[in-house]
């Protein structure tokens, strides 16, 4: 069974983003970029399935600028087998990403697609679900634990009230949550090996998908800022102060 893993290039989670003065977006110049952390978890899960003999080839896909090939290389260094880079500049909305992924699924026929639950830049939390719907496949989102048989997946999911388990038929979509696994670091030999693994270059047009944004971003602004308040000296004083202002 092939496994497809879409990986997005995003601002590194440690970077404190700054909104541009002209309100057109956030400043991406000279900012460290990395693989979306949830996608690292997705790559790791695919590799573990392969190690357990439950998955065959692992294909990492990224839709983005030329530099997104670095993100694919990271996945290849972790253990993915080959990559597909769909070159597109500017923001590609989740629906367009899902349409491109759908076309790739139709060509590659994976048994499973593992995505991150959320890209930490747009915070959309949509792409996996949209892909599932476009393909008419079931989904196990926010996965905490994943078990695969030949024809089905059992997915334990992180939900607001605790954990929920669903059984879904394959082929299926899974999106990762933080506790699914701890992604490995790529070893130096594997980083070297990854340089020889193939990456196919495509464009959205190759898949017949129009990536023109549907949503119009009118502006991007800074949220209201909070100021630091006062320091107190003890737990006793903290309670007294909270009582004084009527917070308790």
């Amino acid at each position, binding site marked *: 069974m092939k496994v497809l893993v879409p990986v997005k290039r995003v601002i590194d*989670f440690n970077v*404190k*983003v700054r*909104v541009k003065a002209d309100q057109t977006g956030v400043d991406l110049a000279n900012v460290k970029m990395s693989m979306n952390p*949830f996608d690292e978890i997705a790559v790791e899960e695919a590799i573990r399935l392969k190690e357990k003999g439950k998955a065959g080839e692992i294909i990492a896909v990224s839709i983005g600028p030329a530099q997104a090939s670095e993100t694919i290389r990271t996945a290849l260094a972790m253990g993915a087998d080959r990559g597909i880079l769909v070159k597109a500049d500017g923001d590609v909305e*989740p*629906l367009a990403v*899902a349409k491109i992924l759908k076309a790739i699924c139709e060509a590659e026929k994976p048994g499973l697609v593992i995505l991150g639950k*959320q890209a*930490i830049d*747009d*915070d959309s*939390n949509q*792409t996996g*679900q*949209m892909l*599932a*719907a476009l393909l*008419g496949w*079931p989904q196990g989102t926010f996965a*905490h634990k994943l078990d695969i048989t030949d024809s089905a997946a*059992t997915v334990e999911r*992180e*939900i*607001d*009230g*605790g*954990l*929920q*388990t*669903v*059984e*879904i038929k394959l082929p299926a979509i899974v999106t990762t*949550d*933080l*506790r699914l696994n701890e992604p490995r670091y790529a070893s130096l030999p594997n980083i070297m090996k990854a340089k020889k693994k193939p990456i196919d270059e495509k464009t959205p047009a190759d898949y017949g998908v129009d990536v023109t944004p549907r949503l*119009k*971003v*009118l*502006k*991007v602004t*800074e*949220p209201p800022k*909070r*100021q*630091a*308040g*006062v*320091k*107190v000296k*003890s*737990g*006793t*004083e*903290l*309670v007294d*102060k*909270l009582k004084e202002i009527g*917070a*308790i």
Partner: protein
Amino acid sequence: MASLVVAEHDNRTLKDSTAKTVTAAAQISTPVHVLVAGQNCDAVAQAAAKLAGVEKVLVADDAQYAHMVAEPMEALILSLADKYDAILAPATTNGKNYLPRVAARLDVPQISEILKVVSPDTFERPIYAGNAIQTVQAPAGKKVITVRTTAFKAAGATGNAAIEKIAAAADPGISKFAGEELSKSERPELTSAKIVVSGGRGMGSGENFKLLEQLADKLHAAVGASRAAVDAGFVPNDYQVGQTGKVVAPELYIAVGISGAIQHLAGMKDSKVIAAINKDEEAPIFQIADFGLVADLFKAVPEMVQELTRLGY
């Protein structure tokens, strides 16, 4: 035309997040209808009918909706979509699960976690863990929206809507609910509590969370946590507050042994009053705390409990 709000509930009680989503919906398109999809969910339908501004409650009572599994929910909502120009759900793990499927099938973008309705086609939403706010205009056509409920007031309970039973849609038959393990707690729910007490890695162990629970019990507060505390296994996953966990905005948030990473702040910085206890005076949490206490939490929290007891809490 009208807007449709998909109700959040557990078949017995209607969640507050529904009332807040109704408020957002009323600013986009009226009349507002509420869809209650569940099993043996009469009480939920009754409660939804009382929400101010709701004209009609549609009830699909069928086993396939008992746990809001995404694929049957998609089919049901799509069967109704023709009649609405906006479809909304609260940005809970349920709403986030089924609603993007609906958007994709309608071939429209979903607008996730709106904070504000600027006009019926223009919305504010957070990006980059709330470090930037995007104002987006949706194209003509149906709007599919999840709502960050901390940003909207709940509709009151003064309404009297009609309740209409509707037929279930055919179950796509590709998925099924297979069990759940829900956290049991006598305390208020994290997302609707007036006071939240959260612990981080500084708590050191799950056992030590008892200390926070004592404080929470005095204050009738909910207990939350940072990702580090959840990853370390101190508390279950549903305690996580943050960018990729729950978003809370209580009257008072007390952060204990939490450093204040941007991903954590994303989930609590809209709280009315923030208090923080941390032994490191450089901890970023102090930059946003109204009251900061640089101290060992194992000394400070018992002091708080003692003072509350003295004050008769």
